Each structure stands twice: as C-alpha cells, then as structure tokens.
C-alpha cells in the first residue's frame, strides 16, 4: 500500500479548506499521507495531520505550468498509490495534467474514495443526475474530489511534519502569472443574509427576475442566482452561488428553477433550510432540499408573494 499524495491548495498565502478535507479523507483511507505544497513555507505549520510534506519552490502564486511540472516531480519522488486534488479550478488543472503526463488513470467529480486492493471513486456526473463508480486499478492513479465531500476538521491540525524538498524542474516558460484580480465590491452581500431567493435558468428571461425580487422583498431577502444567470449578464457576479461563486449558509434558501448541479450545490448545500421549486421532478436539487414543490415557478411565486403581504 503506497502513500497518498495530497495537493495542498492555497491562494494569497492561505491554505484552502479542501486541503484539510483531503488530508482527513486520506488519513481515513489508512495510508500514509504526504502533502505537496508549491507555495510559501509559512503554511506548512498547519499541515500537522499529514505525516510528511514535500515542498517545491514553484512560486508564491499558482501557475498551471509551474505547479503542474512541480507536481509531476513530486509524484516521481513520492511514488504514491493515489494522488488527491481538490475538484477546484486549480486542482482540476493539476489532476488532469498529472494524469496525462504520467498516463495514470483519473477520476474527477469524486465525492467518495475507497481503497480495497483497487482504488475506487464515486463521481456525480451529468449535473448530478448520475452517480458513477470508477475502478482506477491498484495505483498509481489520480482523483479530483469535489469540495465539501469530507469534513475539514478531521484533517486540520497544527504542527510541522517532516519536510522534504524537491527541486523545481525546468519548464518551457510559456505561462506567466500576472496578478490576482479581486471581486468588485457588491451592493448586497449575499453571504450575510438570513434568507436568499435564488433563481436559475428556469426563470427564463431577465424581465422575469422581477417576480423573484418581489418575493425577496416580502421576505426581507436578497436575490441570488446560479451561474447561467450571471453569465447572461442578468445579475452581477456578486450574486452567484456555487463553486466559482460564493458559499452561502442562510437560514432559508429558496431555489427557483435551479437544477442543482454539483457546482451549484457546493455553494449552498449547508443552508439550514432549503425549499426548491422546479418543474422537473428528477432535478437533483430535490435531493438536497428539505422541502420541494414540483411546479412551474411562475404558478407559485406570485401567489406566494401575495400570501405574504
């Protein structure tokens, strides 16, 4: 049984929660856990739940080219059974590059990993409508794990494990990190609201957002949205809930015409109460919602607003 190599993800000098989730998950699998870190040495003191850290001086900021090359070098050094990355923007990039360069099997969108001779991963596919179990063989292999699939506390422990260094390998120098761009300040902070009325593609048109705004007003709530609404330019980015948007945890989250794709659930599944209204009875949002109504949202929302006035 080889080691499990966990990619420690960081942004702006701070470790991402997924790092602790993955270390906790890896420890549960029973193998020895080695963490790879490409950024500053300062963060290593938080990786006490790993048995060893391998550091490469790959630059303070993530760059797919340098971090990808560093991870390949670390994988050669550690010779792991499994490499775990986050399913994030950075983690997915690294998992895929490693898989392609080393010809190691890969499973993405994983929510569970098990090792019983063979490494197996369960992935949520097709917008969460299908669950697939992949057998990746006995290793080495790579798994990209969806954020929030394991508790972070299990892998969070202060302490500095043994550190080994691997030299930064040469790269072609074709990708240059320029800068981080921080979000513009928002008119409404959806992360501090007790109640959110969230709209998805089912709202159909920009003009119909008004219906959701009226409901939000009646509930002293803010309007949030899934990604397609933001990509269409109908609401500002600061209203986006999910993987590439904001994580919210309101007392009440009302999802209108949102299918419940894994990338959306990442941002809202820990809300205290979730009410979903969707015309598709098989929409995955009903699997995380506490209350659901299979209906055309337009048949419900206006009537609900009136009932509240």
């Amino acid at each position, binding site marked *: 049984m080889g080691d499990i190599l966990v990619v420690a993800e960081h*942004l702006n000098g701070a470790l991402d929660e997924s790092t602790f989730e993955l270390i906790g998950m890896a420890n549960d699998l029973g193998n020895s856990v080695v963490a790879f870190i490409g950024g500053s040495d300062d963060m290593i003191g938080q990786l006490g739940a790993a048995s060893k850290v391998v550091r490469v001086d790959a630059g303070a900021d993530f*760059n*797919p080219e340098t971090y990808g090359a560093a991870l390949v070098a670390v994988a050669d050094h550690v010779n792991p059974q499994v490499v775990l990355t986050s399913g*994030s*923007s950075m983690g*997915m*990039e690294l998992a*895929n590059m490693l*898989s*392609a*360069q080393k*010809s190691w*099997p*890969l*499973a*993405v*969108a994983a929510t569970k990993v098990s090792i019983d001779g063979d490494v197996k991963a369960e992935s949520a596919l*097709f917008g969460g*409508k*299908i*669950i*697939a*179990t*992949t*057998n*990746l063989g006995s290793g080495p*292999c790579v798994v990209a794990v969806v954020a929030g699939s394991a508790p972070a506390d299990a892998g969070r422990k202060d302490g500095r494990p043994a550190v080994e260094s691997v030299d930064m390998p040469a790269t072609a120098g*074709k*990708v*240059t*990190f*320029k*800068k*981080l*761009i*921080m*979000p513009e300040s928002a008119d409404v902070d959806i992360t501090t609201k*007790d109640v959110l009325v969230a709209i998805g593609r089912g709202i159909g048109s920009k003009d119909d957002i008004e219906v959701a705004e009226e409901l939000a007003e009646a*509930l002293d709530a803010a309007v949030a949205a899934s990604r397609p609404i933001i*990509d*269409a330019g109908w609401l500002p980015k600061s209203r986006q809930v999910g993987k*590439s*948007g*904001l*994580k919210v945890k309101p*007392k*009440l989250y009302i999802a209108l015409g949102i299918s419940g794709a894994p990338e959306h659930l990442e941002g809202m599944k820990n809300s*205290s*109460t979730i*009410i*979903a209204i969707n015309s598709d009875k098989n929409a995955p949002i009903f*699997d995380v919602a506490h*209350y*659901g*109504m*299979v209906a055309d949202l337009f048949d*419900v929302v206006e009537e*609900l607003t009136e*009932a*509240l006035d």
Partner: protein
Amino acid sequence: MKIVVPLKQVPDLVEDLELNDEGTGLDYEYLKMKLNEWDDHALEEALQIKEGGSAEVIAVAVDGEDVDKMLYTALAKGADKAVKITGANPYADNQELARVLANAISGMGADLVLVGVQSAGDRDGWLAPILATHLNMPTVSVVTGLEVNDGTATVHKEYSGGIMAEFDVALPAVIGVQAARQTPRYAPVSKVRQIQQSASIEEMAAGDVGDVVTSTVEEMRHPEKSGGARILSSVDEIVEVLKEKGVV
C-alpha cells in the same frame, strides 16, 4: 490566426437519463443530445475574436448521430470550416477523445484551441488539459476573459468567490473556456438549412489513437432519493413552512 474549436454532443439533462442493461453507462439510443453548453461558449469566444480582428475558425467533431447538424450550425454561426473525424467512438470519454483530437488537430497549424471547460459527463478528466499535454501546448482552464495580442493570449482564470488570476500564455495554446464574453449566439434554422446547401463538411480519418489511459466504470446509477425533500403541493403549505421556520 487559426482557432480550432472541438465540439461535442452531450445528453440534454432536462430529459430522463436511461442506463444501459449492464448499468455501466447511459443508454444513448433514446437520449436527446445537444451541443455541450461550454463548447458553445468556446465557439462563441472564437467567433468574437474573429470578428474583433481576423481569424479562421475551424469546428472539429467526432462523427456520430446528428453531428452534421451540429457542424452546419457552427458554420451558420460563423465558423469558416467544419471537420468531421470518422472512425472514432463518439461516446468515448475524454482521455480517448483527447487522443483522437490531438491526432486530428496536430497537423492543422492551430494558434489557439478553444475547448469548453467541462462537459456534462466528465468522469475521467477535462478535455482541455489532457489535449494540451498531447499537443505539447501550454494550457489554462476555467477562463472567462481572453485577449490575443502578438502571439500571446492574456486570460482570466476563475477561482472561487469571484477571484480571478491573470496569466499570459504563449501561443499556440489550449484554453478551457468557462464563459464567452457574451451569451452564445443563436443560428436560425433557415440559416443552417441555407449553409447545408452551400457549404460542405471535411472528413478526416481518426487513424491510430495509440495508448489511452483507461479506467473502468463498474457501475452507473441514479442517485438514491434520500427521501430528503418533503414534497409540498400548495402555496399554503409553503407559507406554513415559512412560519414554522420563523421567517414570516
């Protein structure tokens, strides 16, 4: 500048997804397929670059059911050329698809390969970074802003919480597009029909795909209903819940 955009069809997620008898994959026979929405964004971004300066846009797809219609639609939207790869598995996962596409694209002289960041069924990886490795090109995925100047693409890669990183990428490169600068355009059926009369689709044989990294799907299933959501059937019931939770 030459921009290649691989296009792929995926099941329409609004439909019920039937599984095959073995429970190891989808039963594609009765599935309604549509263009992967992120590929549509990649194509739109390519057309935007073309319209903002000059570029030749080539749409590439593996032959399969309704692929001609998808490629003619790309031409109707403004692509200059459509290429269909024959003799490959249209339902192949991304590791195999990346090999097939790398074969086809390597001889095209592409400056930019724009790929949808993800597709609905991605199980064994994302197409863009795997394809980039086989093409030996630099790559950045989850890109929402793209600007090309003198052999360099300046891209914005999205992280979470609205944070982005800016990178310069030397061309040729493979970019995984998350969202085009504007909503993908629509091609009216009449225009697609018209293109079908006047344009043609080039064919190219898949050739030897070489070694593909594989993994085995042991099982595919619908998620078990956790019995989670209590189903409400009237607005009054919703109001009751809101009262119970102290929201109103």
